[in-house]
C-alpha cells in the first residue's frame, strides 16, 4: 500500500509548489487569483459554463505529459495534486504562445475578458493537434471552444486565430517546459505516495487504490467523494456548502480501467468522459454525438462516467442513452460488490440505490445488440446545453419484428426512465411510421412532464413524439434528416 503524504504538490508553470494544509473546499481559481495573484485567469460564472477561468491541467497519461483544458472555478485545489497547472501567464513566458500572438493579430479579442480562457482552450487544441500531427477542422475548432463563451466577437476572428496558430509548431519554450515537467511528474508518480492532507479546514485525500479508498471511507464515512467535481464544485461555489472531508477518486487506478470483453465494455467509474469518448462512440455513433454535446471539453476532461451516474443529477444527459443500451452498474460496499441494472439505480429525484459506504465502481454496457440504438438530445442551444428532452431508443428484432424494446426519455420525469407503454406497443410489431399513432398515444401516457425554464410540458410531449417519429422512420429505412452533419471526433479528447 502506498504511503500517505500530507503535502499537496503540483507544478505551477515550471515551479514546483508544495502546500501542507489547505481548505478542501478551496477552488483552484481562488488559489490562483487570491494567493498567487495570477489574475489572467478570470471568473465569469463560477459554475464551469463560460470558460473564462480555463487553465491547462498537465498530467501523465501512459507516462507522457498530456494537457487538457479545465474550469478552475469548480476544480478543487486538491485535484491538481501530482499535476501541472498552466495559466495564460505561463504560456506567455518568455514570449507569447502562437495562439496568443494569433489572437492579437486576428482581432480575436474585444473586451478581452473571455480571451485568456479562449487562449487556454486553443492551446489545448494546439498541443493535441501537434501531438497527432493534424490540422483541426472548423467543426473541431467549434468543439474545442464549446466551453468558452464570448459576448463580443461573434467568434469569427477567434476561429481565424485558431486556424492561424495551428499552422505553427509548439513553441520551443513550451516544448522545453513540457519535457522538463514530464520528468518531474514521472519522479513524483514513482514515489508511491498518495495525498492525504489534514488541515484546520478539513481533509483532502486522493487515494491511488481501492484498498486505500475503502480505508478512507471507513474512517470518514461522511467524506464527500468527488471525481471531476464538475457537479460538486457548484455545490461549493454556488450553494456555499462546505465539506470537512473530500476524497478524490481521480487517482484510484482500478477505477480508471476501460476494458473490452467480448460481451461488454466495462468502464471504471473514474474514467473521464473524454477518455471514454472513443470507446462509447465506437459502440454507438449517436452516443458519440451525445457526448460531443455533453458539457464542454473542460467538463468532459474532468467529469467521470461514475460521477454522472452516482450523483443522480436529473440533468445527467447520459442516463437515458445508457439505460437504453442496457447498462449495468457495479457497486462496491464495505462487504463486497453487487451488480444492478442502471435503470434500477435511479429511484426518484435525487434518490439512488446507493447504500452507506458504497460507491459506484464501474459501468458495463453490452457490446452486442446495439445496432438499432439511436438517441437524440433537444436543447435551446446545440453545444453545452442541458436537454429539454433527450430520447434514446433501442430494439432487438426477430424476423423483422420487435422482440425487445428499450425506450428511455430524459427530461420527461423526475428521473430518466423507460417508456413501458410505448415499448409494449412496439413489441411484436414491425417498426415503422405506421406504428406512430398508437405508439405516440402510449408515450403520452408514459410520462407527465413538467414545465420549467427549459421547456413547457406541452413542448416536451410534442418533441418526444417527434423523436419517436424520427426513430420509427429511421427503422423503416428512411433517411433521418439532421441539422448538423455527423460530428468529427474532437481533437483534444482522443485517448
Amino acid at each position, binding site marked *: 500500500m502506498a504511503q500517505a503524504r500530507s503535502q499537496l504538490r503540483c507544478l505551477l508553470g515550471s515551479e514546483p509548489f508544495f502546500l501542507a494544509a489547505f481548505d478542501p473546499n478551496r477552488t483552484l481559481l*481562488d488559489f490562483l*487569483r487570491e494567493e498567487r*495573484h495570477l*489574475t*489572467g485567469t*478570470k*471568473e465569469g*460564472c463560477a*459554475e464551469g459554463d*463560460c470558460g473564462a477561468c480555463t487553465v491547462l491541467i498537465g498530467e501523465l497519461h501512459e507516462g507522457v505529459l498530456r494537457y487538457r483544458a479545465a474550469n478552475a472555478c469548480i476544480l478543487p485545489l486538491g485535484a491538481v495534486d501530482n499535476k501541472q497547472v498552466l495559466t*495564460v*501567464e505561463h504560456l*506567455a513566458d518568455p514570449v*507569447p504562445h502562437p*495562439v496568443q*500572438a494569433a*489572437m*492579437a*493579430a486576428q*482581432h*480575436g*479579442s*474585444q*473586451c*478581452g*475578458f473571455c480571451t*485568456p480562457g479562449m487562449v487556454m482552450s486553443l492551446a489545448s487544441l494546439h498541443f493535441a493537434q501537434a501531438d497527432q500531427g493534424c490540422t483541426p477542422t472548423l467543426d473541431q*475548432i*467549434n468543439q474545442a*471552444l*464549446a466551453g468558452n*463563451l*464570448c*459576448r*463580443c*466577437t*461573434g*467568434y*469569427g476572428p*477567434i*476561429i481565424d486565430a485558431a486556424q492561424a496558430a495551428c499552422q505553427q509548431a509548439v513553441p520551443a519554450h513550451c516544448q522545453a517546459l513540457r519535457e522538463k515537467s514530464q520528468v518531474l511528474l514521472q519522479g513524483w508518480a514513482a514515489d508511491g505516495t498518495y495525498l492525504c492532507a489534514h488541515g484546520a479546514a478539513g481533509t483532502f485525500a486522493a487515494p491511488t487504490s481501492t484498498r486505500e479508498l475503502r480505508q478512507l471511507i471507513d474512517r470518514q464515512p461522511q467524506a464527500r467523494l468527488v471525481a471531476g467535481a464538475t457537479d460538486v464544485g457548484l455545490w461549493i461555489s*454556488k450553494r*456555499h456548502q462546505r465539506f470537512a472531508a473530500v476524497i478524490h477518486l481521480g487517482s484510484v487506478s482500478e477505477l480508471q480501467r476501460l476494458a473490452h470483453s467480448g460481451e461488454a465494455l466495462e468502464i471504471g467509474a473514474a474514467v473521464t468522459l473524454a477518455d471514454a469518448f472513443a470507446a462509447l462512440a465506437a459502440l454507438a455513433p449517436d452516443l458519440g454525438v451525445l457526448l460531443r454535446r455533453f458539457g464542454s471539453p473542460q467538463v468532459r476532461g474532468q467529469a467521470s462516467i461514475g460521477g454522472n451516474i452516482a450523483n443522480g443529477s436529473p440533468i445527467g444527459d447520459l442516463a437515458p442513452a445508457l439505460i437504453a443500451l442496457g447498462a449495468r452498474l457495479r457497486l462496491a460496499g464495505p462487504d463486497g460488490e453487487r451488480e444492478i441494472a442502471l435503470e434500477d439505480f435511479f429511484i426518484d429525484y435525487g434518490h439512488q440505490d446507493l447504500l452507506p459506504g458504497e460507491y459506484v465502481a464501474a459501468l458495463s454496457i453490452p457490446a452486442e445488440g446495439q445496432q438499432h440504438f439511436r438517441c437524440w438530445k*433537444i*436543447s*435551446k*442551444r446545440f*453545444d*453545452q*446545453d*442541458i436537454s*429539454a428532452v433527450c430520447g434514446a431508443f433501442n430494439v432487438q428484432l426477430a424476423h423483422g419484428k420487435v422482440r425487445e424494446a428499450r425506450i428511455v426519455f430524459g427530461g420527461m420525469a423526475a428521473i430518466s426512465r423507460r417508456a413501458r407503454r410505448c415499448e409494449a406497443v412496439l413489441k411484436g410489431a414491425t417498426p415503422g411510421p405506421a406504428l406512430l399513432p398508437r405508439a405516440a398515444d402510449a408515450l403520452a401516457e408514459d410520462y407527465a412532464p413538467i414545465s420549467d*425554464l427549459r421547456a*413547457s410540458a406541452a*413542448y416536451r410531449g*410534442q*418533441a418526444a413524439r*417527434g*423523436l419517436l417519429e*424520427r426513430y420509427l422512420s429511421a427503422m423503416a429505412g428512411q433517411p433521418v434528416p439532421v441539422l448538423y452533419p455527423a460530428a468529427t471526433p474532437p481533437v483534444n479528447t482522443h485517448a
Partner: protein
Amino acid sequence: MPETAPQQPAAALAHDSALKHATGEAVYVDDIIEPGGTLHLAPGYAPAVCGRIETLNLEAVRAAAGVVAVLTAKDIPGQNDISPMNRGDEPVLADHAVRFYGEPVFAVIATSHRAARAAAALGRLEVTPEAPLLTVDAALAARRFISEQQVMQRGDWQGALAAAPCTVSGTLYCGGQDHFYLESQVSLAIPQEDGDLLVYCSTQHPSEIQQQLAKMLGRPAHAVTVEVRRLGGGFGGKETQACQWAALAALGANLTGQPVKCRLDRDDDMLMTGKRHDFRIDWQVGHDAEGRILAVDTTMASRCGCSADLSDPVNDRAMFHLDNAYFFPAVRIRSQRCFTNTVSNTAFRGFGGPQGILAAERIIEAVARATGKDPLLVRKLNFYGPRERSLTPYHQPVADFVADQIVAELEQTSQYWQRRQAINQANQGADTLLRGLALTPVKFGISFTTSWLNQAGALLHIYRDGSVHLNHGGTEMGQGLFIKVAQVVANELQLDISEIKITATNTAKVPNTSATAASSGSDLNAMAARNAARTLKRRLIAFAANRFGVAEASVHFSGGRVQAGGQTLEFAELVNQAYLARVQLSATGFYRTPKIHYDRKTAKGRPFYYFAYGAAVTEVVIDTLTGENRVLAVDILHDAGRSLNPAIDLGQIEGGFIQGMGWLTTEELWWDNEGYLKTHAPSTYKIPSCGDRPPHMDVRLWSRGENTEATVHRSKAVGEPPFMLAVSVHQALADAVSSIGDYARVPQLDSPATPEAILAAVHAERALTADTRVPA
C-alpha cells in the same frame, strides 16, 4: 479650422490591448492588487417578489465567519436613491418594501469574497407578500405604468386605414435579453484623505457614478473620483446598472475606513441588474394590392420593471425605429411603459431600436404574405425616397438614405433570387427539414435623443520628449474606442500610434461626461480629442512660424517631423523648444453635435444627426418534428461611413449580429410564478456559442460608405446598428414556417424563436393550412 481633405480609411490596427488580453496582462477592476485591509461586499435579498418588509433579522449574518459589518438603508448618510432620472425610485438598499425578487435589502462586508457571499445567504427576512405584476399583459390589465403614454403621429392615419384596400393586423411578443458581459459588475472603493473616495469601477458612465455616489454620501462631486481603464463587456448593462454596486462599495469604504470591493457573483448579477425590455407590439397596417403601405397604427407596450431607470428614452427609441427603412404615409405610434415587479429594465445595445425594427419587419412580412409577393420586393417598394417620401414619423426628413443601394448590392452578391428559388423547390419536396431566407435592412438613428447628452471632452498633454498623453470621457468596453481615438490624434499630429499613450477614463481629468452609449463613443470623443490636438498643433505652428520666421501656412507636420520653411526637425525637438519658450503643451478639447433638436411634447424635430445603414441576408433550416433549427448562411453589407478602423468595425458588425441572433433565438429569460428569474446563469441562459456561428458568414463594409455630415473623417457610428441585422434571422425562421402554408400567412412566431416557439408556430401553421403535406 477647415475640414481636412477626405482620407483613405484608417489602418486596421489591432485593439490597443489585444496582446495584453491574450497574455492575461490586461488589468480589470478585480485584478487590481488590493490595498492592505481590503474588505469584500456581497448584497443580500429577501426570498420574495414584492411586499412590505416585516422583519429583517440579520443576527446570523453578523455572526457568520469573517463578517465585519452589515449595511442596511439606515447606514446611508445622504440620499438613498440612484435613479438616473432623479425620480427617487431606485434605492441603493430597499427600505420598508421590496419590489422584485432579488432586490438588495442589506449588504455584508467580510474579509473575503466567499465569506461575504456565504453570510449574505443567511439573512432572515419576512415580507408580507403582495400580488405581483409580472408581465406586460398583467400590467396593461392593471393599468400600471412607470410614466405617461407617448404618441407620435403624422398624417390622417385613421382615414388612410379606413380607406386602404387591404388591412392586416397582429400582435408580436419579443423577449428581453441579459447583457451577459463576461465580467460581472465590480467596483473597488478606496478611502482618501478628507473623507474622499477613489473608486475603480467597471462602468460605461463614470460621471454618473461620481454624481450618484456624492449624492448618496451627502458630499460634493469633487469628493469622489471614478476611474475606468477597461470593462469586460458592457453592451449598455454598465451604464446605470453599475451604480448600485459602486454605491455599496463606497458606502462600505465610507463606514469602515477601509477599501471595499463589490464584485457580483454571476447569479446575483443576473438577478439584480436590468436587462433589455421585452415588448408586446400590436400593429395594424393598411396597404394597396401592390404591397405599398398606406398607413400604420401600432401600440408598443414594454416591461420596464419596478422603476423608471432609462425606460423612457429606451421606449422613445423603440418608437423612433418602428419605421426602420420604410416610409409610412400616415402613421400613429403609441408607447406604453409598464410597471412590473421585475428588475428594472435598462439600456442594451440598440436601446429599444431592435424591438421597433423587429416590428417594422413583421409588418412588411405581413404585407408581403397578404399580397403574395416576396418580402424583399415589398421592402424595396416601401423604402424611404426623395421629397415627400423622406419624412419619418417624427418629421425628420431622411436626407442620407442609402439602404436601397446597399440592399441592391447585397441582393446581387448574395444571389438572393437564385437561393430563393432553390429553397422554394427544396421545401416543396421536404417533409421534415424546411429552409427559410430573408434579407432585411437596417436604418438606425445616431445621436442621444436627449440632445444635451451629445457632448464630449478630451485632455491632451505633450511631454518634453514628444510623447503624448491622451485622455477623454469615453470608456473602453471592448469596442475599440481607445484605439480609434488614438488613431485620430496620431493622424492629426502626424505621429506614430506608439507615441500616443492611451489612459484610463477618469472623472478628475475630463469632467461631466456622457455615458459611452448610443454608438456615440467615437463620434463624440474622437472629435473632442481631435479638437484638443488641433489646439496644440495651432500653438506649435504659431511657435514654429515665429521661431523660424516663416508663414504659419508653411509649417507642416508629417511622419513624426515638422517642416517650417526650409527647416525640418523632429516633432520632439520642436516640442522641447516650445517648452523652453513657455508654450502651453496641454489642451482640452470639446465637441457638441450640431444641428440636432427634438421636442418630446410634439414628437417633432431632428433627434438624429445622421443615420447608419446596413443589410443582411440569412438562410436557416428548421426541423418540423422538434423545432430545432440552425442558421446556415449569413451575408452582411454594412455602412460604417469612411471607417476609422476597418478591423474594429468588422468586429462590431459580426459581434453585434451574433448577439442579436442570440436575442432572437436561444436567449430566453424565464421567470417562475413567484417572479423568480430561473435563468440566472450560463447553465440556464444560453447565449450563442462558437458552434452557433453560421458556417457561412460573409461580413463586408460598404465600400461606398461616407457620412454626408461632417463627422470625424466622415465615419459612421457602428456600435449598435449591426445588432439589428439579426432581424433577418427571425424573418428567415418565420419564412421557413410560412412555407408550410405556401407563404399565405405570417406565422405565429414570437421572439425568442426557441425550438419550442418554432414547433408551436409549425403546429399552428399546419392547423391553419389546408395543405396537410405531413400527417399531423
